[in-house]
């Protein structure tokens, strides 16, 4: 005690004063630091909203599409001059002439090739295909008169959806003043209608924005994911089981496998594309653009994710369960199959869904293996050439036509919708079945 009293250090009062002196500065620093944190977090949240706002504001209108009513006369002279009803003749007839005639009947004042072209430009080039389909299905239509709702052209749709105003210049509108007048007349006659855009979800790709749909890409994505899931889940689960339950720990082979898995999880996805290109396509001669190859590449890409998640799920099963089973004389395999796997399954499935969500959004490696081709048909099997949703987004984003911006955003909305569903089901699965031991 006496020693302490003899030292010439600061007294408590002095110390207290010093603390007091700096306290304000320190609290200001504290406030500043906190503000930085808050600001950074808000910025992050802001980006989320900005991203979604930018996509949805461009793409929400995709769910509607404008149709024009045409009073079509299926002129036998145009369709089937010989009267034989030969399907080949019917298929190759000039249906565009019917469209032209029908529009012209509505606007008898239109003269000259240029004006006529502008008039037919109001409806999509898909109109003639639609008429062809109708006639091929039902040849008795020939010679009769019928109302047909056909797709409006992309520019008309653009204007009617309010993306551009009537007051804008002709260049900006991509519609001439005459076209706008005709459009008004059609609207006054109630010959224009906005409907749910079913076509967008069923049709394949097209050069014309109003005809293009995500149906083909959607089917391609589903087929690719199917291949991926069927391969990567069993293999990933098996690998995880081996590493957690059977692998002799800390041997060279086990270490090699573990290091490989961890590194593969961080290899850029485009490198997997190079692998797919040179091994699956170059070496094994598998067909380009096929969903099978896409699925294989994505399998290799998602395997590390699934293995890591499955291992975590298996690790979470308490050892007492294993001891109980082994103590009963269950073999190692019986112990795993009867006890560990059922308990780890929700966690493993969650991992699989997250892996699939990642595979669904993956683009770069699929570009490498040729899934970027322009493909109109909806794929029917895993050997068919196809594209997938994100690649479709990439293709459309590159297109110069303005109408494709809406399609691109629409495709993104569909893509995000699927991702939300997948991630939500993963969260639900986890919350519902996750057991705390």
């Amino acid at each position: 005690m006496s020693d302490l009293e003899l030292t010439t250090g600061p007294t408590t009062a002095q110390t207290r004063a010093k603390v007091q002196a700096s306290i304000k500065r320190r609290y200001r620093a504290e406030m500043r630091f906190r503000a930085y944190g808050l600001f950074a977090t808000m910025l992050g949240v802001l980006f989320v909203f900005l991203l979604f706002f930018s996509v949805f504001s461009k793409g929400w209108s995709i769910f509607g599409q404008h149709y024009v009513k045409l009073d079509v006369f299926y002129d036998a002279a145009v369709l089937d001059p010989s009267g034989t009803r030969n399907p080949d003749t019917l298929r190759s007839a000039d249906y565009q002439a019917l469209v032209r005639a029908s529009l012209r009947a509505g606007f008898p004042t239109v003269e000259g090739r240029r004006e006529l072209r502008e008039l037919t430009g109001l409806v999509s080039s898909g109109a003639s295909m639609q008429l062809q389909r109708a006639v091929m299905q039902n040849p008795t239509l020939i010679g009769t008169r019928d109302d047909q709702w056909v797709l409006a052209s992309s520019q008309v749709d653009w204007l009617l959806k309010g993306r551009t105003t009537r007051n804008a210049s002709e260049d900006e509108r991509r519609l001439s003043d005459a076209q706008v007048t005709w459009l008004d007349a059609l609207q006054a006659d109630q010959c224009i209608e906005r409907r749910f855009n079913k076509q967008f979800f069923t049709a394949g790709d097209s050069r014309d924005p109003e005809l293009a749909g995500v149906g083909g890409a959607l089917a391609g994505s589903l087929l690719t994911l199917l291949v991926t899931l069927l391969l990567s889940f069993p293999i990933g689960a098996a690998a995880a089981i081996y590493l957690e339950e059977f692998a002799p720990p800390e041997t060279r082979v086990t270490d090699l496998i573990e290091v490989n898995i961890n590194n593969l999880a961080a290899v850029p996805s485009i490198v997997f594309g190079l692998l797919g290109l040179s091994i699956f396509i170059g070496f094994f001669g598998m067909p380009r653009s096929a969903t099978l190859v896409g699925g294989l590449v994505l399998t290799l890409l998602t395997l590390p994710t699934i293995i890591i998640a499955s291992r975590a799920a298996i690790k979470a099963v308490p050892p007492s369960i294993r001891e109980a089973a082994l103590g009963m004389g269950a073999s190692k395999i019986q112990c795993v199959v009867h006890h560990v796997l059922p308990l780890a399954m929700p966690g493993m499935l969650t991992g699989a869904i997250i892996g699939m969500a990642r595979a669904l959004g993956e683009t770069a490696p699929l570009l490498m293996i040729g899934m970027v081709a322009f493909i109109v048909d909806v794929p029917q099997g895993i050997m068919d050439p196809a594209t997938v949703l994100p690649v479709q987004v990439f293709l459309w984003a590159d297109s110069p036509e303005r109408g494709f911006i809406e399609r691109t955003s629409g495709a993104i909305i569909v893509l995000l919708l699927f991702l939300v569903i997948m991630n939500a089901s993963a969260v639900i699965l986890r919350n519902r079945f996750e057991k705390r031991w």
Partner: protein
Amino acid sequence: MTPAVLFAAIIALVLVAFQVGKARSLTVAGGPRGIRTLHSLPGHYGLLTAMWCAIPSLLVFGIWLAFQDAILIRMVLVHLPAEVQHLPKAQLGLMINDLRNLVAGNIAPESVAVSTRLAAVEYLHLQSIARLALSALAMVAGIIGLLVVRARIRPDLRARNAFESLIEWVLFGCSGIAVLTTLGIVLSIVFEAVRFFTFVPLTDFLFGLNWSPQMAIRADQVGSSGSFGAVPLFTGTLLISAIAMLVAAPIGLFSAIFIAEYANRRVRSVVKPLLEVLAGVPTVVYGFFAALTIGPLLRVWGEAFGFNVSGESALSAGLVMGVMIIPFVSSLADDMITAVPQSLRDGAYALGATRSETIKQVVLRAALPGIVGGLLLATSRAIGETMIVVMAAGLASNLTANPFEAVTTVTVQIVTLLVGDQEFDSPKTLAAFALGLVLFVITLVLNVIALYVVRKYREQYE
């Protein structure tokens, strides 16, 4: 039989094998009451039989199909007229492509040469023979396996042990696929890259300042000699990654600190998943966002401040890439910060430190190795990111540090070189693999360092 039908047939055979094995074990045991005399359950005998039936037949099936196409093509080529066989490699490749497409029914027979059409007929003929042979071989292999095991079934056959060690090998094989994948990546990339370096010297590639991979198609063409100096790509990649990290590192770190140390549970439960949404958005969406929203926006702002910002600029790609990486940095940093034990914090608080002082001087210092590791992983991700730069950074290989100009990156060039029709042997395509090798090596080094640092850090607090 088509492969699909054959596969179904093999599965059916395997199911039969299971029943045969099971029934046989019951017979040797002398009926259901004799089960106790068996070493294993009857089902185990069935499973063992099924496995030994499935393994040989599926092996035959897989290996045969993997090499069937290559062998058939070679056999067809041998029968082709000499002038076709002596075509230059590139044209031969195109012909084979036509042949494949014709066989698959993707193109009309009229659109290809007569020799190709004949070759296709020959191919289909050989294919039908091959399929027949495969079917016979696979089924016979399966049946032999079945019979061999069936003959060996006795009460003292340790069916369960045999079956289970077989399964263990299968599991081991599955985990070995990861190693095979790495091996496949390394072999395929290195193989093609080495071929590239026979055309272009390694030093020209690594240190050349001019990148214009367009090869002269005709000899008299001027100005498209094809030069493969990759330095502009490296600087472009670095520039964009640097911008991305400048955005992601501070925002990610500070938001992690805020979420981990300041936010109450309600805020945390809302903000954390919201930021994680950014990680789940596909990169192609970011690319679209960068190209159509941020790019034009920056150009308008640039004009307002008197800068000349090009529509596709390093800045817009870098900014958006930074946004993409924010959740990556923030969740890793969050993990690292929460791993710091409470006792350390308590020590600081007990001395009278404020919260920010505790964080800055104790928590962050303790978590530093982990955070550095996380930032390295994020950088590696930025370098390997493809879609954002493909859609927003452009193709111009400018050697510049100006973020307002368009630059190109390693990944962009890989995509451009490989998308579309290409022959396998031109330096142009092979260049993509050389770039891929560089990309793989750089990201691998970053990952290995980062994973090592992070693991060391985790072990410290476990």
